[in-house]
């Protein structure tokens, strides 16, 4: 009798557990996000965003994927999450997406072919400018000092006069102190 009661109790307990299990399963299916969270290695939003930050979807121009609010971009982020879960490295994911959708998904043009121009031309031009400037300064330095005060067409230059006074005053003071 006592045994029966215990088994009845057990049965009741088991049903409760089963109900809870069923309910949990139901809840889990309602919230797929939770399923991933309960996995052994959940992929966090931050991991996804770290990769997405350096990607652009082909539709939303100039909006990085990590902050793009469109549904399409949300799906892309899920794709990235999937790939990270499968163990892909960020670079592999980027290459994969670039192969699928073209180089424009990358934050920078890949370093190949004509794209080298984007990296090489600005420094080359700046260098040319610097060399030109340097040579000119060297060349000009050799000339004698002819005209240190520029004759302006503007006869009234109260500001310059005033500054001269200040500079003169400063020189006086400096020489006194020194």
């Amino acid at each position, binding site marked *: 009798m006592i045994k029966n009661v215990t088994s009845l109790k057990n049965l009741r307990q088991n049903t409760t557990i089963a109900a809870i299990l069923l309910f949990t399963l139901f809840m889990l299916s309602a*919230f797929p*996000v939770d399923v991933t969270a309960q996995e052994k290695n959940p992929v*966090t*939003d*931050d991991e996804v*965003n770290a990769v997405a930050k*350096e990607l*652009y979807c082909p539709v939303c*121009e*100039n*909006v*990085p994927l990590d*902050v793009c*609010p469109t549904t399409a971009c*949300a799906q892309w982020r899920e794709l990235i999450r999937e790939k990270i879960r499968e163990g892909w490295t960020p670079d592999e994911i980027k290459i994969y997406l670039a192969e699928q959708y073209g*180089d*424009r*998904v*990358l*934050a*920078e*043009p890949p370093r190949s*072919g*004509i*794209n080298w*121009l*984007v990296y090489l*031309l*600005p*420094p080359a*031009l*700046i260098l040319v*400018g*610097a060399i030109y*400037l340097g040579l*000119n*300064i060297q060349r*000009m*330095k050799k*000339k004698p*000092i*002819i*005209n*240190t005060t*520029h*004759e*302006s*067409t*503007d006869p*009234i230059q*109260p*500001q*310059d006069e*005033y*500054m001269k*006074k*200040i500079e003169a*005053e*400063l020189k006086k*003071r400096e020489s006194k102190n020194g």
Partner: protein
Amino acid sequence: MIVEFGYGILIISLTLSIFAAIASVYGGIKKKPTWVESARRAMLLIFPLTTISTLVLLYLIIRGDYSVAYVYSVSSSSMPTYLKLTALWGGQAGSLLFWAWLMAIFAFAVSLRNWKRDYEFLPWVILVPSLTLAFFLSMVVFIENPFIRFWADGMGKIYETMFQPAGADLILPPDGRGLNPLLRHPGMIFHPPALYLGFVSFVIPFAFAVAALITGRTDDRWIRITRRWTLVAWLFLSIGLVLGMRWAYDVLGWGGYWGWDPVEIAALMPWLSGTALLHSVMIQEKRGMFKQWNMILTILTYDLVIYGTFLTRSGVLSSVHAFAQSAVGPLFFGFIFITLAASVGLLIYRWKDLKSEASLHSVFSRESLFLINNLLFMGILIVCFWGVNFPLLSELVSGQKVTVGPPFYLRATGPLWAALLLLMGVAPLTGWTIASAERLGRTLWKPALISLVSPIAAAISGIFIIPALLGFWLITLVILVTFFEYWRGIKARIHSTGENFFFSLWNLTAKNRRRYGGYIIHIGVVLMGIGIIGIELFQTETQGTLTPGEELRVSNYSVSYKELAEFDAPDGRNVARAVLNVSKNGKPIGELYPRRDFFYDAQQTMTIPGVRSTMEDDLYVILVDWQPISTRMATFKVYHNPLVNWLWVGSLVLIFGSLIAVWPNREE
């Protein structure tokens, strides 16, 4: 009727601007003052006329006349009046009209100045704005007409034309589509006007440069006349850029203020060449040097202004092919080509007259440092120009679109900005013409050493990011040197006049507005630098999906999700608004309300962050997603943006400094 009236006035304005251009050239060449005067008066008349057209369009928008296609596309009855005002420039046609109207204001102002002393410039100074006006007005009259209306014939076919097609009647849609929600922000009231004002005011220095080239009066008179115009242009452009940054920070919801978007860069480019110009004109004024270079910069800035408008208005950025679909793009291209070719031709013609009167004598003289400053600004400009244009080139050549994004620009321009900071710290201490490394070293070593305090303090507090430490050092150096310059001037004044400190500070600045205003601008720039370093190098972020009561942590903040509500607001949007409890170091400090607005009329969503802003840092929270039915779970993205407020404070200081520099002297 009023629609035809507005359009008719536009046609008259266009005719007048063409007349002004022809009459000024004829009067200038044939030396006929009556023709020049006639051109000037035509110019004076264009301003009130375009004002009438602009007011007509505004009236149509405010009254809600949705039979006008432009009004339909940018406004709706649920929009408040102040937003309807901004709808004037919220679309293509309206913004081109607005551009032309602002140009007319400046053309009016320059026509009114006292021309006695510079009469020979007058016809050519009229020519440039009148041609620019003719270009923009013809665009508005022929291609992007803001007065086009909807018509429907008996078969239900809809026409979009200016005048009534045969057998068709006017249709009046009950409501408009409304302004792009992204533009429904107070910053958008002032950002486009400020930017456009900056753009059009750069036309005036260019007009004087062209006049100087044509007349052969290539001394520094044109520079002296235009320096205030250039400063005003620069001020407006700066205000426009800063407001755009603030708008992006408040409205775009990606935690930043500057995304190196081509549209942003389009506005930055004339600012870069304009800033270079503001510095290099000083060498021409003081030493009669680099006249050729100043001409080049002035021409470049003008064409970058037109090019910037072209980039944002032609649709070329979304695709090279969109460019060919509208006539706007090719016309802009043609206009840029013609103005550039003509002004470069003139420049070559006068090249020899523009030889320097003096030469450089030292690498460390102020003129050399100004030249290096120009090289750096040009370097940044090259990076920007190439970065914006390369995707177009790539699409044309290989058919492959590429993105040139922030990593490229940050890497390429970062060292150049740093070098500019260094110059800002060094140049004020150097003298004109003759300066030796030894003498510079003598004045520089003290501030350079003292300013090491800030990177050392940062390192002690655990910051080991080299660019940040370098940045902090340079910023402190600039601040020290600038204050030293002020103090030197004040000391000299106190000594020579016996004034007290405050009077001498006041008079020093008042009598040398450009120089000391310029120093204040430098302080503003480095304060902005603090904010930029803060957000670029120290921004952290995290994202997570929370149920009520759960929290996210970033830096020493934690935000916990309290609740979320979805409701319809009376102005035609659906709002999802979350409430978050914020605590710092475990202490509750308040609530934040990030939200997502959905605009029914425009079918667009907007992400409005919840921001807690202090001088130390900003906590910036975005509502990324939520479960619509239960509103039990929501995803948030939290940014910690250290020091970013200094960016806005620095901007205010920069504007204050520019105002001092721009303020007219009593004698003038």
